[in-house]
């Protein structure tokens, strides 16, 4: 018989936990959900747009009643649970319904705090918490004219804006001298106040409410200084209190909230709790993103997986008042020893402030232009060292160099504007999908719309749309990104385990790290294959079935299923016999098109897969080997003419290029890897946009790293300058090996250098000579096993099945439509 799971609280946190649980193990439990409200689960953070008339209640429903029925979940609405019997493992509702449980999940949320003022029980005095409150406010707006909102925080301002839009005259009362003091510093709060005043809101600052006046219904609010303001509706938005009455009544340990550990378990091991009712490590969260993180961890434990930990959240906030852009995250008020970077443009109404400690972002406040909010938030959560781009950080991410994709005005774009150029997805399609399908994460938007799922250059724009459309409900990817959905471990955790636990094949990795899927997925398998290969050269046996087809077939698959072939040309040099062999192959196999590549080689297109081994045999005969143009591997070394012919050349750049390619060819990498050598600072080989670039000067060689010419152009950082070719080779090998050992699979050198910081790389490659030599030795050791031409082996018949179609055995009984294919 299935175990029974009861969820008390039909809101966003509890339901998110259920959805995560169903994803992991849909069959484990018989589930009952109790909700005090008469509605199915809806998106509470969208109540403000409903109040403002921008959305309807139907728009914000997340799980319809059909959804519950479809998943076999019993839903009891409008009947709150009033008691938990922890001895009999049973809950009871107000109407007397009882349900037994094996596991109980509390997600009772919070209640608005109603200040116990004289008169606060009068008609027309409400909080702003649920659909009923919104309906009360809308009804009041139809019959009455004047509203007072007590509380100038996020919720109060959203309520005030909504009432104003419904035609009421609204006064916001705030105890302090600055609005949203928990999210904004004073300059930003002043800009916000001015903008809201312009819309018609009135403010009473530093005002202490003394009493609510009226008979049955409120007529006015009285303040401590005697002032009275007429009011037909009073909305109290001064804060929320975790709703712990049920848990307390059952004797579960509570302080401000229900106490939980890092697995979201309460002091009763059968009872878990998530959401606003929870107190974790001393903190109660009132924003939705942390609740989703809690939900994911809790689901993991409810499913008996037992590996996830919730370690608290850093939160960010956006105000959902249309036309006002405001963002805040982290510690936005500088402490002692902190530095602040400020950009202030009163003319355009823009204010941005970053609080910096030890070259890392600790907090951000933005007003007017919040496009880069998600980027700053990412820098903050990941603790990125910003020294390298500190002087431009306030100008935003697109200032780092984005080939035409950094349009910071995404929010102002029309719905018909194309956001994802790869898949042709327009802004309107993305925002529609977010709203109608209830999407919260980048992954979900990718799955439903395909936007940002190919080259990824529009990811920032999609994140901005997501953040803007769902407000703080947007759950940005966790700072430790999981490798894939199969286990939830980060890349670093996996690399560490493979090396330190000496895991030497994929099965062992799956077992040791509790993979959920029987044989991984197309994301983790190629990554693991690479990590194992990089960690155990000569020991790990490459798994062809875990490689993407290009690497399995040693050619690039094209859109029609044919393949392209690029022979290696060391340093871009070539001989007549080699060119003749390439020409012969092109004619013999009827290559429809040839092209000179950007990496100074020749690409043959349109080859049939079954012809590849014969093509390679012919190329091998002329001494040509695989160029690895298809792989996450060392690709080419681009060179300029150099000192031998060029009147400006200072060193033999072609000769050095050949030596570098001889050192590095055949090496598998986390991503593609390109080198270049320029013979003088004119830099004709474009060495400063390569992963490893050498610029020759009269006195030696400048070594540049972390460049990229792709989606997002990045100029290299200067690693150091060396005097001899031998040093160039040693530094190149050491840098390459560090990248191979440390970068995440599919992370190019540019983001890797930014992630770990140039200083850390300099220390280990330049300053620590012993470490450099050790890295170089490890690289050379691994190259012993890597420098085997994959084409030669296959031309001799290895792996023949990969390239040969099946033929029919019993020719006699083959039907007419099927022919043998020998």
């Amino acid at each position, binding site marked *: 018989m299935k175990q029974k799971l009861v969820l008390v609280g039909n809101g966003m946190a509890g339901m998110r936990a259920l959805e995560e649980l169903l994803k992991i193990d849909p069959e484990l439990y018989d589930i009952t959900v109790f909700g005090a409200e008469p509605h199915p689960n809806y998106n509470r953070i969208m109540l403000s747009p409903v109040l403002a008339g921008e959305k309807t209640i139907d728009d914000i429903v997340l799980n319809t009643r059909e959804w519950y029925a479809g998943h076999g979940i019993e839903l009891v609405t409008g009947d709150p649970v009033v008691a938990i019997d922890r001895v009999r493992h049973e809950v009871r509702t107000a109407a007397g319904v009882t349900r037994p449980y094996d596991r109980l999940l509390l997600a009772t949320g919070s209640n608005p705090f109603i200040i116990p003022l004289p008169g606060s029980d009068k008609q027309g005095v409400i909080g702003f918490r649920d659909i009923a409150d919104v309906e009360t406010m809308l009804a009041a707006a139809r019959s009455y004219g004047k509203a007072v909102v007590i509380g100038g925080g996020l919720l109060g301002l959203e309520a005030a804006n909504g009432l104003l839009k419904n035609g009421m005259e609204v006064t916001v009362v705030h105890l302090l001298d600055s609005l949203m003091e928990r999210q904004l510093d004073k300059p930003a709060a002043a800009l916000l106040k001015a903008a809201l005043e312009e819309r018609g809101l009135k403010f009473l600052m530093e005002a202490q409410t003394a009493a609510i006046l009226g008979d049955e219904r409120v007529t006015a609010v009285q303040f401590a200084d005697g002032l009275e303001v007429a009011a037909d509706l009073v909305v109290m938005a001064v804060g929320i209190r975790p709703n712990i009455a049920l848990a307390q009544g059952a004797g579960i340990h509570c302080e401000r909230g229900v106490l939980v550990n890092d697995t979201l378990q309460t002091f009763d091991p059968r009872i878990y709790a998530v959401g606003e009712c929870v107190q974790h490590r001393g903190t109660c969260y009132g924003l939705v993103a942390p609740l989703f993180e809690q939900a994911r961890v809790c689901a993991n434990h409810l499913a008996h997986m037992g590996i996830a930990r919730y370690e608290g959240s850093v939160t960010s906030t956006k105000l959902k008042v249309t036309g006002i852009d405001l963002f805040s995250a982290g510690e936005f008020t500088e402490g002692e020893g902190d530095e602040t970077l400020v950009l202030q443009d009163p003319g355009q109404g823009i204010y941005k402030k970053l609080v910096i400690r030890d070259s890392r972002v600790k907090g951000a406040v933005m007003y007017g232009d919040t496009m880069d909010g998600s980027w700053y938030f990412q820098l903050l959560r990941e603790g990125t060292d910003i020294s390298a781009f500190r002087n431009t950080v306030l100008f935003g991410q697109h200032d780092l160099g984005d080939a035409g994709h950094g349009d910071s005005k995404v929010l102002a774009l029309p719905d018909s504007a194309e956001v994802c150029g790869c898949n042709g997805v327009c802004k309107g399609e993305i925002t529609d999908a977010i709203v109608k399908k209830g999407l919260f994460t980048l992954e979900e938007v990718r*799955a*439903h719309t395909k936007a940002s*799922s*190919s080259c990824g250059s529009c990811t920032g724009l999609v994140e901005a749309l997501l953040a803007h459309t769902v407000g703080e409900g947007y759950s940005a990817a966790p700072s430790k990104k999981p490798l894939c959905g199969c286990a939830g471990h980060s890349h670093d955790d996996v690399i560490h385990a493979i090396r330190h636990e000496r895991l030497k094949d994929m099965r062992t990795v799956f077992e040791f790290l509790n993979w959920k*899927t*029987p*044989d*991984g*997925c*197309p994301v983790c*398998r*190629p990554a693991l294959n690479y990590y194992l290969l990089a960690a155990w050269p000569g020991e790990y046996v490459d798994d*062809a*079935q*875990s490689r*993407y*087809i290009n690497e*399995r*077939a040693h050619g690039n*698959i094209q*859109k029609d*299923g044919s393949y392209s072939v690029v022979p290696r040309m060391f340093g871009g040099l070539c001989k007549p016999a080699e060119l003749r062999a390439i020409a012969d192959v092109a004619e013999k196999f009827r290559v429809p098109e040839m092209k000179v590549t950007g990496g100074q080689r020749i690409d043959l297109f349109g080859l049939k897969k079954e012809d590849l081994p014969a093509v390679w045999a012919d190329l091998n005969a002329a001494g040509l080997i695989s160029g690895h143009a298809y792989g996450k591997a060392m690709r080419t070394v681009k060179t300029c003419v150099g000192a031998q012919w060029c009147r400006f050349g200072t060193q033999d750049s072609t000769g050095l290029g050949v030596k570098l390619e001889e050192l590095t060819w055949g090496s598998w990498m986390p991503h593609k890897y390109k080198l270049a050598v320029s013979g003088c600072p004119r830099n004709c080989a474009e060495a400063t946009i390569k992963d490893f670039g050498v610029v020759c000067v009269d006195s030696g060689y400048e070594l540049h790293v972390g460049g990229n010419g792709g989606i997002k152009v990045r100029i290299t950082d200067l690693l150091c300058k060396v005097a001899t070719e031998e040093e160039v080779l040693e530094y190149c090998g050491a840098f390459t090996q560090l990248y191979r050992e440390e970068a995440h699979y599919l992370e190019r050198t540019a983001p890797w250098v930014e992630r770990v910081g140039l200083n850390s790389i300099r220390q280990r490659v330049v300053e620590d000579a012993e470490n450099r030599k050790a890295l170089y030795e490890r690289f050379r050791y691994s190259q012993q096993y890597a420098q085997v031409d994959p084409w030669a082996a296959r031309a001799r018949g290895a792996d023949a*099945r*990969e390239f040969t*179609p*099946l033929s*029919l*055995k*019993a020719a006699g*009984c*083959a*039907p007419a*439509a*099927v*022919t043998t*294919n020998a």
Partner: protein
Amino acid sequence: MDIWTEIARLDEIPRLGARVLRTDTQDIAIFRTATDQVFALRDRCPHKGGPLSQGIVHGGTVTCPLHNWKIDLASGEAQGPDEGCAHRYAVKVDNGVVYLAFNAGEAEA
């Protein structure tokens, strides 16, 4: 009526991999899972015609090499929010030999 035709020995198809069976009207992808289950689908992704036989096989699913659509091997249906279906063929494994069922309608579909 189905005609069972021998197409390969099981060990000629790589585990977690596929082989292509070429007919004069179309290619058929023959997949083998980690647990030695064998499935056959038309070698065309319902999205943009990518060769499914060249994809990565994981569990009972293959991921198309062109745009990462995930196709269920047993039903041929695209998974997740994607919609589409690759034509499937009946296969059986008997004594280490893989047989494919053709009938006139299917072979020309």
